[in-house]
């Protein structure tokens, strides 16, 4: 795996038609760290994720990967450095777990180059890492939601990325699988950006948190500084009690209902 890279957005703006979705947002992730994106629905998290991943081009501003403009990278060049896991992936194709994970090697191979033993080794390693080694022949449509996300994570890791970008990877999953997925991500040494819904999970797994509201960056910093009762009331419109957990020493957010 190549050295960790730094990823940054400089005053990026993105519009859908005439509607401004991302409005002059600047965020950055230090090499090897995890940045969490939080915010209410429609705050522009997913769009910012797409800009950071280079899937959309910003109307204004730049996304920089290792101090180089992301638009200057070739598609394959970028895919060898940045891997993306979407909210939920769907397909009609009758593919197996192994087929999907092998897709991760796509950017490392030219149009007709043969599959190598090095590719095999990487695929095996990632399967082991997400605990799916003995299910490689299983069909995608027989997997549960949590297993599918693990397969997609394995596919992303098979890209041998330096930066991993996840768009609410734990949506629709039960709490055990949410923690499962985030633990796996936490153990990786890559630079990570993750959009996340659950504030407690964000506090537990992120080094820094960026708060978005109506397309604008509200604030950004370490969880303990960011996740205040005032911010939660202002941005999410919910009264909350924030304390330090006696169990894991991290922030614990309780919503007062």
């Amino acid at each position, binding site marked *: 795996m190549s050295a960790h890279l730094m990823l940054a957005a400089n005053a990026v703006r993105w519009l859908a038609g005439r509607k401004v979705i991302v409005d002059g947002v600047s965020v950055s992730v230090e090499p090897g760290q995890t940045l969490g994106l939080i915010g209410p629905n429609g705050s522009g998290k997913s769009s910012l994720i797409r800009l950071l991943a280079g*899937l959309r081009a910003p109307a204004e501003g730049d996304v920089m990967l290792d101090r180089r403009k992301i638009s200057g990278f070739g598609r*394959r060049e970028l895919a060898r450095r940045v891997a*993306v896991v979407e909210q939920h992936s769907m397909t*009609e194709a009758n593919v197996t777990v192994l087929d999907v994970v092998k897709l991760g090697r796509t950017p490392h191979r030219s149009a007709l180059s043969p599959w190598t033993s090095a590719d095999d080794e990487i695929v095996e390693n990632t399967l082991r890492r997400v605990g799916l080694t003995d299910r490689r022949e299983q069909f995608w449509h027989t997997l549960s939601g949590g297993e599918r996300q693990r397969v997609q994570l394995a596919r992303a890791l098979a890209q041998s990325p330096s930066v991993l970008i996840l768009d609410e990877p734990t949506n629709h999953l039960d709490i055990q699988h949410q923690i499962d997925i985030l633990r796996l991500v936490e153990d990786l040494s890559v630079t990570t950006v993750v959009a996340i819904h659950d504030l407690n999970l964000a506090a537990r797994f992120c080094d820094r948190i960026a708060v978005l509201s109506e397309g604008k960056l509200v604030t950004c910093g370490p969880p303990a500084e960011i996740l205040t009762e005032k911010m939660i009331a202002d941005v999410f419109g919910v009264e909350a009690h924030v304390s330090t957990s006696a169990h894991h020493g991290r922030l614990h957010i309780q919503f007062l209902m």
Partner: protein
Amino acid sequence: MTSSRIRPWAAGTAGVLLVLAALLVAMTAGVAIGEMTIPMKTTVAAVTNRLGLTEIAVPRIQEAVIWDYRLSRSLVAAFCGAGLALSGAILQSLLRNPLAEPYVLGISAGASTGAVSVMLLGFGAGAISLSAGAFAGALLAFAFVVMLASGRQTADRTILAGVAASQLFNALTSYIVSTSANAEQARSVMFWLLGSFAGVRWPDVALSASVVSIGLVVCIWHSRALDAFTFGEDAARSLGIAVQRVRVVLLLVTALMTATMVSMVGAIGFVGLVIPHAARFIVGPGHMRLLPACALVGALFMVVADIVSRIIIAPQVLPIGVVTALVGVPFFSVILYRARRVA
């Protein structure tokens, strides 16, 4: 869970070889069977004579029938089947819709309108051939679909645009036929619309062979990219695929193949829909194997369908589209039924 572990295409390679052998047998049968009864020995001799391999004395008329009529017809049938199946496979993967095929997307309908315009309205005053008319119609329908589905292009929008295009161009064809054709012409147009290999000759073989060969090479070259479309366009893009370019190249190749086939033999449905599903069942979803398999199975299917169309109500010939639908639908039902059981 046990059934999910079975890979039905484990013996895929053997299956492909089997299909290849079956194709050769079917083509020989296709050449041997016909109105004029010609012994098998003469059939083979006529072909090998022309290839310069033998010099066996064969009645000239028999040799001419074999070489100029039946062999060319059989070859065009094979290339048509391959081209249509390939087009269907590409459209299904690219649009991520199991129902996509040239017929559904209105490309065939556009080609028919173009051909009928030349045939009945006299567009081009004889300077434009029927084929050129069909080709123009196919490209027009294709442009119509792309335009309607443009902007934020999604698979569903493209299919909907295709449905609109089919309706429009079929209506135009019917309008032209009912307002400007006499009964005799209307009958021959309807016959042509349902597909017919009657009247194809060696120039058609050369054209269909080159178009399908180019199409196959371009498609196989993009097979990795097509695999990457499994989870949609954004997923493909994040795997390093130049999504727009791949889409444009492959859609153009598909339009080219379809337009060529329709201009030659009419609009033949169901091949592009059924064959890719059957091929997937044999070799699995990976495009490196799927695309050649589609071409082979499509060729076999069409050659057999052509034989059936000639013998079922001999000496008359059924429109090939009738045969492909009659054979295709039950076959398709079986696939759907088995797929449901696996799922």
